[in-house]
């Protein structure tokens, strides 16, 4: 059982609320999404493990058991090419759960016309493997869901 933590502070709204069918239809995997508080934020690692991929707008942490969790900071934010994101860790780093990974500002993303909502997805998980999904207000580091 992996406990996945909220990478940012905000409101857990569920994947169905993500304005991108790739996430809302569960194509990437099960999980949830957080509508972040507007203001400068530090996105943290949702699990302990190795940073397998680190883009400014998204990262994947893989735990020792091989489970990978994707955190995507906003929708269509790949188009920003890193502008407005500051990396606080490096690809290949080992991080503890809750350790800072990227600094960013959801308000700036929104001002730029994009949704700052953050999908948090269990990669390669079947839908039923994710349970106890939090709903409502969460703080970074709070339990977000369990992954059997």
């Amino acid at each position, binding site marked *: 059982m992996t406990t996945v933590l909220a990478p940012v502070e905000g409101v857990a709204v569920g994947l169905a609320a993500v304005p991108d069918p*790739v996430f809302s239809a569960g*194509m*990437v*995997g099960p999980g949830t999404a957080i509508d972040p508080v507007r203001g400068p934020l530090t996105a943290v690692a949702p699990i302990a493990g190795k940073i*397998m*991929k680190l883009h400014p707008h998204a990262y*994947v942490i*893989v735990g020792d058991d091989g489970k*990978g969790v*994707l955190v995507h900071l906003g929708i269509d934010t*790949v188009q920003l090419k890193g502008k407005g994101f500051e990396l606080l860790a490096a690809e290949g780093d080992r991080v503890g759960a809750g350790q800072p990974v990227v600094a960013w500002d959801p308000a700036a993303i929104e001002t730029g016309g994009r949704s700052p909502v953050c999908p948090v997805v269990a*990669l*390669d998980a079947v839908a039923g493997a994710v349970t106890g999904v939090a709903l409502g207000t969460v703080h970074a580091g709070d339990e977000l869901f369990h992954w059997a």
Partner: protein
Amino acid sequence: MGERKATVAAEVGLHARPAATFVQTAMTAPMEISVAKLGGGDPVNGKSILQIMALDVRQGETIVIKAEGEGSDEILEQLASIATTP
């Protein structure tokens, strides 16, 4: 062993939407699907979004997709088509 080469056309590479679509399509196949970068690297499981993301295929890079058995031609065609869609 059937195989297709496909040059990834999407600006984001084989990530996000192209990766999810690719893996979802691969999942419909009964046989194993392997994907490797042309000219190097170990093949990964085409049905794993994690492994496809780890492969980190960029726009303009060519992948080799392999499958064998009944229906492999069709699935390879579909996967190559997804990879080459801008």
